[in-house]
């Protein structure tokens, strides 16, 4: 079946919905999602969205910009970071006008809380910049955007899995997608395609990411000759629930929570003397790993405590001399914790049987966010090479894209800023592009490649490899060797295992040969995407012989700006991965040593 | 769109909903009043417990057939108690048959059957109120 729309958006999270809202004001838009829009992973974002509103104390977008660039370990493109931080203020107000129920200050303004890495650039103290709606900010953003899409009668194709991008002669012409319910292939003929497919945390064993986050978009792009940028940078969030990886928001530390090792020591004082527990995520994750490695994990195991009990938090408020704006000592009560962090209390109660008001929470770093992705310019247009040549009609934004605003390490709250700002920018630019461009004809049999992928999976003989086995081996090897700390032999071993797994992937067999709602087939297809992404990640990590942000090489512990202040671009041709590099855009902030 | 916007049907639904609740409270008072009155009038000495309760809810002097004390309060056969009984019967019947209508709406789905069933409920309602009226006012 062939559908014709001006613009096709793949993914209905924050980026996809924001882009749809803007693009559909001028052209015919359809949004494809492999779930329902409200199931998107944006909904699990907890702590807040960063914007220098200054509702509590002085704050400026330029401080936000600098914090972002410093957080990125100077790998972010500074023009893009500046745009993001300045437009953040605008999108937050826009969300509020759309109805998002932000928490409020006494004067009825949007309430803000401190978050890791966000500082007053003059005093270097944490600043309250994260606008929040309890600890379900992402949930409210997703709901609010979906509500507006309903109001605006945006067309959705729910439960459609994208399988292929139709691109010919340097022009994107649509996508091929599988209707999950029926198993039918649909061709979407379009002038512009936006990939807003999110991340790929499922490459790792311990992850905060949803089962659906399998990197479909980047994998499809990679198979069509489009490079992936900065894939070696994947953020590990310091506080995931032990063993499960479910995220505990940085907002907990923003509200006064501290990390404690088995000696009862607040160890972040040693790693980030100024802002301590609110250091950026790469630093905090590494600190936890180092504590564990030196035998200071709780019970000698590989986790530490995140303690937000009022007595602990208040003790450290006093020790740090923290004060409210009116000068009184800062205090938190059990009621505040329950009111501001209800979902966290719910998670820990459900999964650990722990009440955060009376007990500390066991946490360990968890694979969380992809800084890299499909390379784009500041309008969301996908660029193909070191010269930033635009691939006409193809857009990417959000976690799946790499603008790059996060560089080597993303600051907390900036993911939500990214999806909204660049979702909006790409929506606007797609509309402009669609109004100017004409439809280009589809190639013959546009769905051939997609059909071949699906049919070959279905046609495999019985008794082959199981999808789940290959997937769990991939996740384990990536966790062991391409996670918080990396070194050459380990990464090489991971690459060997991965190519072995790729080979075994060719021999998998699936139980379900049917067409209707065949999740067995889908999981097999998704595993293919994961393996491709894992290989690219490991290859890029092997090549980068320095430590920067989330990429921490034990054999090369120093940042090397002379050699490595550049973005990687990974291409895949004939099964081999080729790495090229392009320069970082530096505008106002020359690289400095990064101390918190 | 399958769902209609505001129309005429809604007001009736609301008032019946409200009536159900208000009449429930009203009937509680009537019941309590009847039982208390029956006891004050000496019912505890002359009637067994079921009779007393039955009487309390519906104090018509001949209400109880199966009793060897049918005429303890012949003075209750005055118009006040008859009108009182009639009002109670009517309110109880509206409350009850409206409840039956709701149950019917819940579990009868074919439109024609539903219409028939609701018609039948209405006819039954009229008949019970009519028959009750005849009995209360002794119009034989």
């Amino acid at each position: 079946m062939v559908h014709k729309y001006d613009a096709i958006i793949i993914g209905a999270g924050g980026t996809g919905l924001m882009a749809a809202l803007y693009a559909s004001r001028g052209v015919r838009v359809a949004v494809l999602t492999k779930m329902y829009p409200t199931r998107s992973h944006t909904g699990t974002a907890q702590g807040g969205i960063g914007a220098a509103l200054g509702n509590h104390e002085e704050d400026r977008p330029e401080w936000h910009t600098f914090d972002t660039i410093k957080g990125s370990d100077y790998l972010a493109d500074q023009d893009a970071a500046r745009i993001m931080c300045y437009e953040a203020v605008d999108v937050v107000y826009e969300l509020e006008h759309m109805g998002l129920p932000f928490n409020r200050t006494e004067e009825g303004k949007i309430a803000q809380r401190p978050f890791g890495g966000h500082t007053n650039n003059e005093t270097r103290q944490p600043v309250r910049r994260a606008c929040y709606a309890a600890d379900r900010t992402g949930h409210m953003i997703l709901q609010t955007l979906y509500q507006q899409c309903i109001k605006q009668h945006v067309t959705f194709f729910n439960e459609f899995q994208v399988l292929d991008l139709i691109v010919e002669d340097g022009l994107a012409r649509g996508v091929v997608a599988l209707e999950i319910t029926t198993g039918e292939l649909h061709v979407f003929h379009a002038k512009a395609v936006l990939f807003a497919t999110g991340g790929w945390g499922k490459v790792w064993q311990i992850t905060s990411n949803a089962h659906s986050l399998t990197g479909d978009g980047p994998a499809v792009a990679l198979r069509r000759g489009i490079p992936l940028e900065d894939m070696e940078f994947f953020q590990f969030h310091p506080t995931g629930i032990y063993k499960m990886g479910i995220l505990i928001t940085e907002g907990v530390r923003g509200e006064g929570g501290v990390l404690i090792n088995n000696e009862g020591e607040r160890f972040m004082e040693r790693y980030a003397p100024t802002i301590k527990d609110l250091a950026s995520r790469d630093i905090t994750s590494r600190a936890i790993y180092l504590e564990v490695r030196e035998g200071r994990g709780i019970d000698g195991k590989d986790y530490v405590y995140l303690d937000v009990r009022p007595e602990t938090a208040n003790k450290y408020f006093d020790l740090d001399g923290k004060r409210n704006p009116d000068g009184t000592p800062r205090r938190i009560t059990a009621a505040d914790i329950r009111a501001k962090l209800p979902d966290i209390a719910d998670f820990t109660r459900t999964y650990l049987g722990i009440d955060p008001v009376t007990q500390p929470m066991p946490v360990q770093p968890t694979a969380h966010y992809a800084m890299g992705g499909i390379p784009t310019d500041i309008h969301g247009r996908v660029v193909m090479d070191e010269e930033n040549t635009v691939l006409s009609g193809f857009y990417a934004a959000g976690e799946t894209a790499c603008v790059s605003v996060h560089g080597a390490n993303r600051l907390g709250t900036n993911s939500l800023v990214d999806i909204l700002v660049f979702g909006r920018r790409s929506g606007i630019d797609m509309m402009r592009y669609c109004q100017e461009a004409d439809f280009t004809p589809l190639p013959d049999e546009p769905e051939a490649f997609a059909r071949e992928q699906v049919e070959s999976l279905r046609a495999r003989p019985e008794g082959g490899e199981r999808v789940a086995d290959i997937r769990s081996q991939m996740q384990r090897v990536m966790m062991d060797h391409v996670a918080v700390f990396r070194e050459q032999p380990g990464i090489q071993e991971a690459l060997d295992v991965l190519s072995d797994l790729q080979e075994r992937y060719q021999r998998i067999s699936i139980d379900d040969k049917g067409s209707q709602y065949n999740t067995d087939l889908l999981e097999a297809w998704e595993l293919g995407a994961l393996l491709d992404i894992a290989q690219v990640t490991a290859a890029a990590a092997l090549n980068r012989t320095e430590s920067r942000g989330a990429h921490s090489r034990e054999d090369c512990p120093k940042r090397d700006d002379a050699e490595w202040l550049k973005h990687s671009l990974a291409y895949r041709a004939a099964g081999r991965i080729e790495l090229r590099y392009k320069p970082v855009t530096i505008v106002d902030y020359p690289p400095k040593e990064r101390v918190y | 769109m399958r769902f209609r916007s505001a129309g005429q049907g809604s007001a009736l639904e609301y008032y019946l909903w409200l009536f159900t609740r208000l009449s429930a409270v009203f009937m509680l008072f009537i019941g309590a009043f009847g039982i208390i009155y029956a006891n004050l009038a000496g019912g505890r000495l002359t009637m067994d417990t079921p009779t007393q309760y039955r009487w309390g809810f519906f104090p018509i002097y001949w209400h109880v057939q199966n009793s060897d004390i049918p005429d303890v309060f012949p003075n209750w056969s005055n118009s006040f108690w008859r009108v009182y009984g009639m009002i109670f019967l009517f309110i109880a019947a509206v409350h009850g048959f409206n409840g039956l209508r709701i149950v019917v709406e819940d579990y009868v789905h074919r439109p024609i059957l539903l219409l028939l069933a609701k018609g039948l409920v209405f006819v039954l309602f009229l008949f019970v109120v009519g028959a009750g009226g005849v009995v209360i006012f002794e119009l034989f």
Partner: protein
Amino acid sequence: MAQGEPMQVKLKIRRFNPETDKKRWWGHYQAEVEPTDRVLDALHYVKWHVDGTLAFRRSCAHGICGSDAMLINGRNQLACKVLIKEVGRKITVEPLLGLPVIKDLVVDMEPFFEQYRAVKPYLVNDDPPPATERRQSIEERERFDDTTKCILCAACTTSCPSFWARSDYLGPAAIVQAHRFIFDSRDQASQERLQILAESNGVWRCRNIYNCTEACPREIQVTQAVAEVKREMMRRRV
């Protein structure tokens, strides 16, 4: 703590494949899990190691996305929010009641979302917005806090006997969404929403059964929200 001995559980799963089955049937499976695992982990065990044809929805696996609402041991719950130790060694899993089954545990959510869309689930405010935020006091914000938690998982609506009886009933989830806007001080369309909900398929069908409130994985006081909508109608009419 997330520790425990591996244990065997028996799963009884309601199966249906539209391509091969005329009737629904029960599949019986063994799964090896830990007491602190989720029911979702047991389902994954079956799907990944025993029978790949089993179909169910899931995504975030920690109770936020709302994909995996299903009937577990006779009650609507999220498979990712129920631990094995809470349900014991025998687990019965069925698809949600009242929505058409597509395959196994997967139901067609479209009727549910149609109900949702019917209540105008979006902020309506035609005044030109100010340059910064619209002001709202902490108390005004608190008024509708509870109903903003809804994740549209359909656990409430499909646990409601009034919905089972008549599927044109808008259902608790839609009313919760309406409540979220009716009591938002910034909204201007509450009158319209109240009129929609006053229809014969609206709030009057609620019989205060509380199955919705008991089923809600986000612990929203669903019945209370419905009652508050009823109360608001009374207030405006009488």
